[in-house]
């Protein structure tokens, strides 16, 4: 399982290295989304208050695109079918693709956070760093897991461009909420205290645990014909 996962992750990341889609296109996209939010919400005070929420919203939208891309690679020339036919362990495929997705998401989030600090005038503070880092880690892994699970379901289905957001967005709502609150606590947005953030991190932890086990078990039946 883990060998397969490594193979699949390496393949996905190599494809990304070759095509540079995340670096050249998703990153700018996410940045634009942030700017866009700032535009739509025009009042300065509002943006500053809700900045962590916006970071995570932008991450979600980028996630949608990343997942789509991740499975477009597979379905373009029938590789999913080939994988199934080759009897490759679905759990391995799941973990591998999730791993690659998490790596790409992590890069993205760092850029987004930096943008938020600059554009939305958020302050990093020493006391919140541990919380901030663990929140980002947990949320990233959680998002990658759910994204891969539902991406696999939607892949190959007609109208997948639209089914994926429908399934994915409600499920990741807890991540959005948890990560936003924890980030607010870590950054001290609108006077939040660091201690308030830990329970939210717990919520994220539960989510990750759930989907790593659930996804590993469920991915096989999902992609089966």
């Amino acid at each position, binding site marked *: 399982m883990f060998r397969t996962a490594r*193979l699949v992750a390496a393949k996905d990341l*190599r494809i990304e290295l070759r095509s540079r889609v995340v670096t050249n296109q998703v990153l700018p996209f996410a940045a634009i989304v942030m700017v866009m939010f700032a535009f739509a919400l025009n009042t300065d005070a509002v943006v500053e208050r809700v900045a962590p929420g916006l970071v995570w919203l932008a991450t979600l939208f980028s996630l949608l695109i990343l997942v789509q891309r991740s499975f477009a690679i597979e379905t*373009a*020339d*029938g*590789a999913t079918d080939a*994988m199934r*036919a*080759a*009897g490759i362990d679905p759990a391995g495929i799941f973990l591998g693709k999730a791993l690659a997705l998490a790596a790409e998401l992590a890069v993205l989030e760092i850029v987004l956070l930096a943008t938020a600090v600059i554009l939305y005038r958020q302050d990093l503070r020493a006391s919140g760093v541990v919380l901030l880092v663990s929140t980002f880690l947990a949320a990233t892994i959680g998002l990658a897991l759910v994204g891969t699970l539902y991406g696999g379901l939607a892949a190959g289905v007609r109208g997948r461009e639209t089914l994926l957001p429908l399934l994915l967005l409600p499920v990741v709502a807890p991540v959005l909420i948890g990560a936003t609150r924890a980030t607010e606590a870590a950054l001290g947005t609108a006077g939040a205290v660091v201690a308030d953030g830990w329970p939210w991190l717990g919520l994220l932890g539960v989510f990750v645990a759930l989907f790593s086990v659930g996804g590993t078990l469920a991915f096989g039946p999902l992609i089966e014909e």
Partner: protein
Amino acid sequence: MQLSNAVAVLGQFPVLAGADLTVHRGEIVLLQGPNGAGKTSLLRLFAGLLPLARGEGTVLGCDLRTNRESIRKRVGLLGHANGLYADLTVTENVRFWGATVGATSAEVDAAMVRMGLAQRLAKVPVSKLSAGQKRRTALACLVARRAELWLLDEPHAGLDATGRDELDATLREATAVGATIIVASHELERAGALATRLVEVVGGQIREKAGSGGSSASAAIDESA
């Protein structure tokens, strides 16, 4: 391999409508028949990709209804699609598909040489290949797998004259070491010479034809695979 009264359904449509077929180890069986007769479906059934709706079947000693996963590990399928990653080079593709079944790098290289991909093309991304070159790459991926049962859906399509010769030689070698091969093809002149037995698929059913007797592999070995 054995099928008796096999029915398989896609959507509401019975792509296989009671097919009976027995294939022995070491045979090269040619499936022919009009468009839409069910050749592709039959191959997918053997590969464990299409569930059996009624009837019974065993492949390599595994039951098609209960044990599809274990079949897949021992079967190699070349479908209408190639299952290649467009952004990766030829070598990377063959290596990836080889690695998923634990092929050594020597085996991967041998497969590439076999299909005439070892020179200029080795480092070309698949997206830049011509149709026939892609087909060759897909075949190389398959050769690297060293399956026990080869299922080939129109393998000759798109290959040039030398490619066809190489393929035929490869298939003969594979049967010599005990593999069984089922080929669906419309190119009767070409595939007929290769096959030890001709089978006609019509309307989701199977009609046996007199064997063309191109080679004698089947006569010698007569254990049911």
